[in-house]
């Protein structure tokens, strides 16, 4: 193997580098294109990449690293009889380093536990809730939204369980802020964006400041600059241009519908309304609407819907009913 031509070594080095890069959650378009070019350039590239990727993903490497991390280094001397003599001295010296490194790892992990903060937040139906996170990020939760927040010295993670939440993230140079919604996640350094968990699969992300990365799994990733939005779900993706202002409309009681279903509009209204709106016939939910609705005033919205689609609405004791 030592006799391999230099060129092979260069390919291996590039392949190893690509394996690390492509195992990261974010690639920008330029890197992605460069990778595709590199793969197509020479058949040996894909072969070398495949072998390094197999090594990187292997259970063997995982187990070896697990053992190394668990500090099984110290008991290693006994198995180490096949180490040549010239290496023995270096090895002893290195064991000292390893002990120091180990202390460092232990210190870091003990110290870290004390620095981790975890909390759950929920907004009751019909009311929004403002939360100021310990890192300075401001969060506004719409009625019925639930989330857990975990802050560590190296990460800021939010698990959104339901509802719609607007995040105004305090910028930090190194610590990313991630929001996970089960099927997809959003990662940023410091921006303002809104996430809506519309149903089990559908997620809508709108960006008001900065740049966010949306990951829908299976290598599907998008980078969205301010002024853009995306709707992911049900196997499809819809890009939402025209995100205006510095915060979403629902905060001021407005909803911008863009060929949106009545069902969705009603769902939004019900988050902030004391009296829920129900549809007399579920089929009404599929009717499309476009325009700006003041969802803090359900009766005005119902009036508008009635006018657009020739419908009727009435107020009952504990609900509004929309019918044909």
């Amino acid at each position, binding site marked *: 193997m030592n006799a391999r031509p230099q060129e092979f070594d260069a390919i291996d080095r590039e392949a190893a580098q690509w394996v690390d890069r492509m195992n990261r959650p974010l690639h920008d378009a330029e890197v992605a294109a460069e990778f595709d070019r590199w*793969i197509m350039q020479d058949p040996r590239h894909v072969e070398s990449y495949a072998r390094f990727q197999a090594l990187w993903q292997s259970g063997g490497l995982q187990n070896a690293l697990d053992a190394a991390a668990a500090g099984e280094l110290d008991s290693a001397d006994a198995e180490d009889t096949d180490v040549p003599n010239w290496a023995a001295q270096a090895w002893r010296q290195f064991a000292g380093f390893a002990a120091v490194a180990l202390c460092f790892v232990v210190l870091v992990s003990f110290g870290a536990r004390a620095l981790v903060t975890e909390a759950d937040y929920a907004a009751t139906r019909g009311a929004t809730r403002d939360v100021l996170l310990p890192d300075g990020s401001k969060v506004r939760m719409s009625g019925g939204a639930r989330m857990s927040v975990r802050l560590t010295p190296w990460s800021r993670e939010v698990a959104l369980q339901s509802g719609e939440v607007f995040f105004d993230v305090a910028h930090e140079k190194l610590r990313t802020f991630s929001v996970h919604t089960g099927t997809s996640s959003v990662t940023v350094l410091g921006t303002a964006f809104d996430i809506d968990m519309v149903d089990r699969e559908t997620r809508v992300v709108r960006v008001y400041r900065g740049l966010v990365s949306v990951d829908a799994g299976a290598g599907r990733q998008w980078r969205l600059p301010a002024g853009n939005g995306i709707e992911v779900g049900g196997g*499809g993706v819809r890009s939402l241009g025209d995100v205006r202002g510095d915060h979403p409309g629902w905060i001021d009681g407005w909803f911008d519908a863009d060929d949106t279903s009545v069902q969705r509009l009603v769902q939004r209204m019900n988050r902030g309304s004391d009296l829920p709106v129900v549809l007399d016939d579920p089929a009404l939910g599929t009717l499309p609407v476009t325009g700006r609705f003041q969802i803090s005033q359900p009766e005005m919205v119902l009036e508008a819907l009635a006018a657009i689609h020739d419908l009727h609405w009435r107020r009952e004791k504990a609900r509004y009913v929309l019918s044909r």
Partner: protein
Amino acid sequence: MDRPAAVTQDWDAVRVTLLRYLRAKGAAPDLADDVAQETLARLIALSQTQQIGSLFALAFRIADNLIVDAKRRETRLFGDVDEEWESDDPSLDRVLDSRRALDVLSLCLRRMPPLRREVLIRRRLNHESCRAIGDDLAMSAKAVEKHITRGLLDLRQALERAGVDVSGEGR
């Protein structure tokens, strides 16, 4: 941002490259054919409805997942894969998961500069980003990247020197 979905691809070239990827990872010829075909079908369907960043990154990921699924089915059908069967068709994954490979990799990790080992542990086991690792260990993200690349080359070379066949040839 990303490649528009309407760009026409040379799907045949993609299929050939996928096959090469799968074969180099040690997939048996039949399995490689099936997986390449299925991956291509999904890729074409996705490319019609979505924007794809790196076509090959996505293709390899889909193929990797299909291989994992195939393995799971295989284990369900035959129970745990026994030694005998393993030596019949030593796919690269099985070679890399062997006791011998584990010993070689462990030894190589022990001999490596502690900092490099630390970087590998954080990146592969803890899935920390290069940036976060660099921050904690007081080095640039570029330096972290170099440690990982070098670490991978060391590990691969250790396997080759120990005679663990990772060439992916002859299968």
